[in-house]
């Protein structure tokens, strides 16, 4: 933790489903991020040091300096459908907070509802992932986190090239189109095994360590 440029990115993952928390944690750790998981929006806000009553008075710092330093969060990824505070509610509270609004927020949902997606993106979410979330989704997070942290410019350029050839700044509409297209692709993943295998390959190269001694099914070379 702290101000070192070499320190890992810290992601706060919010999901009421224990299975999905385990999954997102594994995905994030595989990508070398530090992870904290919580099971509700309320707990997320507690962790971030934001208290309900601070909303009404924007002049009051909602996070004490010590608190902020200890729990630096570089990205929040949250489920949309949660009992009590939804992911959307959480997103709004974060964007309304002077101390937290710069933290990128990503929404996950098992349902592909275009109006829901638009609403979240309009409210300031960086991305909207369809569940089940995959490594290829998690690979899209780095550019958002890098915007909020000072890093060695050379390193930053190299990583940007690796992740995607797309320019970072896009208009909101382009982002939404991109997102919907991305979701369409995801929905078509199942029948198109060949296509998704090559996507998976790419995700592997980017995300996973090559050191493996245990034989592993990779769905590519075995013939029955």
């Amino acid at each position, binding site marked *: 933790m702290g101000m070192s440029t070499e320190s890992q990115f810290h992601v706060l993952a919010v999901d009421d489903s224990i299975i*999905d928390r*385990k999954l997102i944690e594994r995905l994030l750790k595989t990508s070398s991020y530090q992870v904290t998981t919580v099971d509700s929006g309320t707990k997320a806000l507690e962790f971030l040091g934001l208290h309900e009553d601070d909303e009404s008075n924007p002049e009051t710092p909602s996070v004490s300096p010590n608190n902020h330093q200890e729990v630096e969060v570089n990205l929040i990824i949250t489920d949309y459908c949660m009992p009590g505070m939804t992911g959307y509610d959480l997103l709004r509270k974060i964007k309304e907070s002077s101390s937290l609004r710069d933290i990128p927020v990503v929404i996950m949902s098992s349902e592909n509802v275009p109006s829901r997606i638009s609403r979240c993106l309009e409210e300031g979410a960086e991305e909207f992932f369809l569940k089940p979330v995959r490594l290829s989704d998690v690979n899209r997070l780095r550019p958002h986190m890098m915007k909020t942290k000072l890093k060695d410019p050379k390193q930053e350029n190299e990583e940007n090239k690796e992740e995607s050839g797309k320019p970072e700044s896009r208009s909101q509409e382009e982002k939404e189109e991109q997102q919907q297209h991305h979701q369409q692709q995801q929905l078509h993943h199942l029948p198109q095994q060949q296509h998704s295998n090559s996507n998976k390959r790419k995700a592997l190269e980017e995300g996973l360590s090559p050191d493996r001694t245990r034989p592993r099914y990779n769905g590519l070379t075995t013939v029955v």
Partner: protein
Amino acid sequence: MLVVALPRTALFLQALNIYYFNKGYLDEQFIQLEELEDDDNPNFVEEMVTTFYNNSARLLQNIEQALVSRPIDFTKLDNYMHRFKGSSSSIGATRVKKECTIFTEYCKKANAEGCIRTFLQVKQEHACLRRKLETYFQLGRQAAGPSANAGGQVG
């Protein structure tokens, strides 16, 4: 039905995996889980599956109770099923997920009979997959050799 006279090799496991995949028991999400295993987390898939079966037992019970109560609270049912379906989807349980979708359709139409009937299918697929996965993990331990004795029964 798969004849179980096994060569203790990873190749057989791959064949079994493809079989499950082709028969629609498991989809690519399961493979994604396997890809997330490494030397530091060698039992991730089994852990996920175990967590799934522990967690889903409770959800299924809730659904069962909601189905026998009168009047049936379809909103509650929909809620429980939504969570159950989400979990099933996260481990790649295709057939279970399909039955969940059918259930949800009946639920939204407040069709009690349809729900009850489909729920039987849900439970059946759920139990069937569990047996297959238990076999799969057991074979995996055998194939990996005596050093890989971590992990236990599913759920």
